């Protein structure tokens, strides 16, 4: 750890409550003791996003802490996934999508002209809502990122594949059929394979877009255990519809509503003692 980083860590950021524009800027801070969080890895400053004329995100500000799991919750269409897809600039693919404001990862703006987008995406991995293994063998799926990066040595690839399948808790189930098609795996296995594939490129941040929404409870439990383990090593941002899931796996939770962040705090606080009535209504199931 460099001294600079250490200093950043000691600086101890205040948890950003809500962003400046969204509801009720005056918040009862007196009940909180000063929360300390590690240095942020992802800093979002005044990000607004437009699909053509339609505004999908409204001046979002937030700092996502390092090596923690942060969950985005909120009703459908509130912009959770859109915000997530800003972090690896996957929104660039959408026609007519325009972003204002700035996002920095490791203090470096991802919109800088000198940022190589493929390089950015190697540092910001992503797991999708619907498992999307490539129509290749299990081995080739995990080795894909390394091959893209130009690694072709068999022994190196073997190591990468084994290490990451183990990290994704899939190794024991597939070690004897690495060359079978990934399409033969069950839904939960496919999703863990996608996680293995994403972490095989050793990203700083792992984005997860409702990774369990298409899975049964047992497969979901496995993935949740996995997330708990992975956050030791990676910064995880997870979008979820399932509030129990958010409370189980995440350290911080942001509640979003129609393009705004209503409240962003520790998961415990959001679920047990939210500052906003709106948040309380949502997490207690009164709407949404």
């Amino acid at each position, binding site marked *: 750890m460099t001294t600079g980083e250490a200093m950043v860590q000691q600086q101890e950021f205040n948890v950003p409550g809500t962003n400046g524009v969204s509801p009720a800027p005056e918040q009862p801070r007196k009940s909180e003791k000063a929360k300390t969080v590690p240095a942020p890895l992802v800093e979002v400053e005044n990000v607004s996003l437009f699909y053509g004329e339609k505004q999908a995100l409204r001046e979002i500000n937030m700092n996502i802490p390092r090596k923690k799991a942060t969950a985005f919750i909120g009703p459908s269409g509130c912009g959770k996934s859109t915000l997530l897809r800003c972090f*690896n600039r*996957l929104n660039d*693919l959408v026609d007519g999508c325009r972003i204002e404001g700035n996002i920095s990862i490791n203090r470096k703006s991802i919109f800088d002209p000198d940022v190589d987008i*493929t*390089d*950015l*995406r*190697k540092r910001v*991995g*992503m797991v*999708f*809502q*619907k*498992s*999307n*293994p*490539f*129509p*290749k063998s299990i081995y080739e799926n995990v080795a*894909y*990122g390394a091959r*893209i*990066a130009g690694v072709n040595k068999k022994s190196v690839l073997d190591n990468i594949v084994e290490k990451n399948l183990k990290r994704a808790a899939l190794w024991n189930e597939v070690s004897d059929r690495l060359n079978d*098609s990934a*399409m033969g795996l*069950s*839904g939960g296995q*496919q999703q863990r394979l*996608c996680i293995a*594939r*994403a972490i095989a*490129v050793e990203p700083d941040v792992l984005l997860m877009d409702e990774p369990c929404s*298409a899975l049964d409870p047992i497969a979901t439990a496995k993935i949740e255990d996995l997330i708990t383990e992975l956050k030791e090593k990676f910064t995880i941002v997870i979008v979820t519809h399932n509030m129990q899931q958010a409370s189980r796996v995440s350290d911080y939770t942001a509640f979003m509503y129609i393009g705004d962040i209503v409240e962003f705090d520790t998961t415990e606080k959001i679920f047990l003692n939210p500052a906003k009535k709106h948040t309380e209504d949502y997490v207690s199931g009164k709407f949404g």
Partner: protein
Amino acid sequence: MPRLWKPGDAYVWISGLALMVTLVMIGGLLFLIATKGLGSLWPVDIGRYTLTDGSTYLGQLQGRESVRGAHGVKSESEFRVKLKIGNRDLYGLDFKWIDEADIASIDYPRDAVILERHEWGNYHGFLKEIRKNGQIIPGGDPQAFSVLKDLVRDANKIHDEILKIEKGEIGDVNYGIEKQRLKLRGLSMRGEDNPAKEAEARLKIEQYEARYKISEAELGKLYTELTRNEVVMLSAAGDEKVMPLGKIVMAFRPNDMGFAQKAGFYVERFWGFIVDEPREANTEGGIFPAIFGTVLMVFIMSIVVMPFGILAALYLREYAKQGLMVRIVRICVNNLAGVPSIVFGVFGVGFFLYGIGGIIDSVFFKEALPNPTFGTGGILWASLTLALLTVPVVIVATEEGLASVPRNIREGSLALGATKFETTWKVVIPSALPAILTGLILAIARATGEVAPLMITGVVKLAPDLPIDGHFPFLHLERKFMHLGFHIYDLGFQSPNAEAAKPMVFMTAFLLILIVVILNITAIIIRNRLRKKYATSAV
């Protein structure tokens, strides 16, 4: 009435009926072609038909039809039969219609012989005697027929040898002389005064001519060998006919064969039909060059059409900005698939033969002019014309395949830091491969059956050389070739002997269908393998 329509039962019946009609038509077509074609090779028993006017014929029954009420037929009988009587040299025609009322008696003599000949079609008759090395074996001898068969086999071996010399040694000599001749011509055309080179070429020509003399002598010897032994036959009416054994391809006695023997004979003939070259204006012998030409042409076409079609579809679907222009291009591509094939043929003649072929000739084959090399029909131009004809099919199928690759698979690849190019080549195209191969299957099916554009871009009735042989560069793309589809047309409508060609038409049609099926099944097997390998997620 509304009760009948509302539950939809009537729709089910109607759609079922429509499907049934289609199936019956396809089944009927295949059945007709298969029976008429495959049946023609079966060694039908040969009957001795004695007519009321005293004349006799040895013939194989080929058909029977009603003549009652037929125009201009004055006959007491209700039916007439069609006999294959052979002996075209005696009767003028191989086939004869006989009214059943005119037949006095029919019997099936066991010793009736059919000789398949190199010329004049089949001979039906009885063995009188064999003249072997000046020795006479009478036809009544129990061994006579097997001696005849042995002699025919020997004669066939000599024919094979002759063919080997003609195609091999003499082919080489001709090829060499032509090459040297062109070299000399090239020298004089360029106005080069190079006596050394000239002398060298002339010397080589002389050497070739010497080689030719040797082969010629050898050939002469073999030809006399063919006429040394003779067979004397008697026709049904008792006319004697002396034939050198070299003229005979095959001798058999259908009435003396059991079912197993006939089946074996059938298989042998069927094989011969596939691997032999045609004889007698294509009405006899096999169709190997046509099969070879068809398959080779389809291969060349596939090799050309696949990359073009796939790349064009890739650009249209993945890279081009979707808008009015792309929509117009897409409509044009779809319409191109509906343009009559002869139009492509005309384009092929104008663009490939005269345009590109003419340029190639004037640059690389100046010496051979005014004889065109590439400036005339050939297998390359025919394949390219067909590739042009089928490229829309491949483009449309590939585009559909690309469109069906789920967006989240592309995003998965991009999210791992792959560029668009890497994503396309490593993930999208493999996923779309089954659909791309479906396009190829459709293209092959269309190209194999196409005749019209080929007739003007390189197909001929009889091609002396296959497009692949032992002379460098082994694959001769400028050569004309034979094609099954054109062969059917040629046999059916251009043949001097329509009756004899009829079974060949059906056989050829049957084989053409068989080849389309084989090519398609091969492609389907490959596609299914890929589909298993690249199946898109079922979850």
